[in-house]
């Protein structure tokens, strides 16, 4: 099969285990070949070389040999201990061998031709001691300083790299960066399979580290400069993990924490794994809305992370207690974790890495960043945007629902988020202050929400001691009434309604009375009618009697007269 054959011809890779580096090198360093790691002083070359070996054994079971030209073994052990690497144990278990090579030019007289066979012998010796698959040479350039005959050193280094390839060990060679060149002594000429450049610079008094894969023969690789950081877990590189926007999407929902807001979205809340921007001017209730979200998430048993750039955890807990969100209980039960730091504590990258690490360790389902706009203190908009892109990609990949609050300055347009991040967001809730009748009242509306038929209504946003309540705003002709103006208008409406009701009741009564009167008249007439009928029949009876009496009289008179 064609796919299989391409796989067979693919460059074999050697995973470094260094967070992020394997992603941008599409699987690691070229296996069985040397890789050059260059950079200025203090950029983390030695650390990277050591981490390559330590992780190599810890994560992939491959022992390593470290040849140090600059630091002695004890120094390496001490320096690595601060990163949690227990070198003495690895050395005891014969998984790591270190040889410190010391050359002091002033102590050596050169008396003729020589070679560096002893270096090869020593290297081979430590490789064989532990059966090393990975080798680090830090910093091989010390040979140029220690030996006068540069031609010999160059020839021998060339031979060394060939020899290492033949040994089939994956090697990391560190080198000091030169002025305008990758390395001071042009090592990149010899080690041309893979070159990684580390950089450490200070901008606006904040130090940032970066890493770039300058070249990688026979492999695709990310070509950008990637933010890098060194902390107690070693080196981390931050790739934009989803250059191709391939994150999973969910059809599940997570509640906003405010029932009526759920209704406004689609009845269920935010999409799980989506990014939500809550923007508004100062004091519009952004933090409260974020607190409602985490409170509900915790109530539903979801782990949540609250990253605060502005307030201490205690302050957030106290303040949210006043609107009936007891966040303290979730902190105690371990569902909620606060992380509070001034943005200027460290550079953007560190914040990002911190978030990455927290998210990986704590595995939250919901996360709040409050407020994201405070990062402007440590980076310009472009950098923040880049960082947020990375962060959002990361969170989406892990299906973590994130609420970002964003402070809009009073003067700027409301529907323009401070750091130009709205296009990254799936749902955008806008909180606004409305001033009328000597009052400021909050209103909320859904500016956008991708993938759902959301409400177009504005709601008044009330912070009460029973929590957040949304209520209808009074929309009159050309005005939106909120607060007591709304209450007054509602009272007026109720009064008018009452009057209308009363009027109709009165009319009802009148009609009823009229009907009753007519009914009474009707009864009287009927009575009279009956009386008349009776009289009539009496009169008729009398007439009949009179007629028959007259007839009888006539008959008697005839009889008396004896007529026939």
């Amino acid at each position, binding site marked *: 099969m064609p796919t299989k054959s391409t796989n067979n011809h693919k460059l074999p890779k050697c995973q470094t285990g260094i967070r992020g580096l394997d992603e941008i090198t599409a699987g690691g360093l070229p296996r069985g070949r040397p890789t050059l790691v260059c950079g200025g002083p203090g950029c983390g070359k030695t650390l990277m070389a050591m981490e390559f070996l330590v992780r190599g054994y810890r994560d992939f079971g491959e022992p390593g040999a470290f040849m140090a030209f600059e630091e002695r073994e004890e120094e390496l052990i001490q320096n690595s201990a601060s990163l949690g690497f227990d070198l003495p144990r690895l050395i005891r278990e014969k998984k790591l061998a270190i040889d410190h090579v010391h050359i002091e030019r002033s102590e050596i007289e050169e*008396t003729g*031709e020589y070679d560096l066979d002893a270096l090869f012998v*020593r290297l081979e010796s430590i490789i064989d001691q532990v059966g090393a698959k990975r080798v680090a040479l830090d910093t091989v350039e010390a040979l140029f300083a220690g030996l006068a005959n540069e031609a010999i050193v160059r020839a021998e280094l060339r031979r060394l790299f060939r020899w290492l390839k033949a040994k089939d060990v994956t090697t990391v060679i560190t080198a000091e960066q030169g002025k305008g060149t990758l390395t001071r002594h042009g090592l990149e000429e010899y080690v041309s399979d893979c070159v990684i450049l580390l950089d450490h610079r200070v901008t606006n008094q904040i130090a940032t580290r970066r890493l770039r894969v300058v070249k990688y023969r026979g492999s695709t690789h990310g070509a950008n400069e990637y933010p890098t950081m060194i902390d107690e877990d070693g080196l981390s590189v931050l790739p934009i993990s989803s250059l191709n926007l391939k994150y999973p999407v969910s059809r599940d929902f997570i509640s906003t924490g405010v029932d009526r807001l759920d209704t406004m979205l689609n009845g269920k809340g935010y999409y799980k794994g989506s990014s939500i921007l809550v923007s508004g001017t100062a004091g519009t209730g952004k933090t409260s809305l974020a607190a409602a979200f985490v409170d509900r998430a915790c109530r539903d048993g979801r782990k949540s992370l609250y990253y605060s750039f502005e307030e201490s955890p205690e302050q957030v807990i106290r303040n949210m207690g006043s609107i009936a969100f007891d966040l303290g209980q979730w902190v105690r039960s371990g569902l909620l974790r606060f992380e509070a730091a001034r943005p200027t504590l460290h550079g953007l990258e560190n914040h990002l890495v911190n978030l990455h690490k927290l998210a990986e360790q704590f595995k939250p389902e919901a996360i709040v960043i409050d407020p994201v706009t405070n990062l402007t203190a440590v980076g310009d908009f472009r950098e923040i945007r880049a960082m947020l892109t990375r962060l959002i990609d990361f969170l989406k990949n892990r299906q973590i629902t994130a609420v970002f609050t964003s402070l809009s300055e009073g003067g700027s347009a409301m529907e323009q988020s401070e750091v130009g991040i709205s296009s990254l967001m799936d749902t955008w809730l806008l909180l606004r202050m409305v001033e009328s009748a000597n009052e400021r009242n909050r209103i909320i509306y859904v500016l956008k929400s991708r993938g759902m038929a959301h409400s177009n209504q504005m709601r008044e946003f009330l912070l009460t001691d029973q929590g957040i309540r949304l209520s209808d705003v009074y929309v009159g002709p050309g005005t939106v009434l909120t607060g007591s103006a709304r209450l007054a208008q509602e009272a007026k409406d109720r009064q008018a309604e009452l009057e209308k009701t009363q009027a109709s009741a009165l009319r009802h009564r009148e009609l009823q009375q009229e009907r009753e009167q007519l009914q009474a008249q009707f009864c009287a007439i009927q009575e009279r009618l009956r009386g008349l009928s009776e009289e009539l029949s009496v009169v008729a009876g009398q007439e009949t009697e009179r007629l028959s009496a007259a007839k009888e009289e006539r008959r008697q008179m005839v009889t008396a007269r004896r007529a026939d």
Partner: protein
Amino acid sequence: MVQFKTTGSTRPRSQKKGWLFRLYVAGQTARSIGTFRNLKRICEEYVSVPFKIEVIDVFKSPQLAVLNQIVALPTLIREAPDGPPLRLIGDLSDTEKVLTGLGLRP
């Protein structure tokens, strides 16, 4: 072809007087042998104190190369009771430089 015996272990500094030369080489190559020959000649011509030469093959004893910080080959280390060890690298073909390295030339 001059043959030389190599030793696998260095004895403690037993030279109470006189010099001990330790010559580190890699195998019995032409360069190793040439270097040994150069050393012997220089010693016989210029060294007035008693001397002893030990040849160490780092292929056979890599640990000695580690222990004594040998990088380049051949390396010559001269130990003497009255001074710090001196270190020379190369095939000792440049006699003037060897003599400078051994402190026999001002």
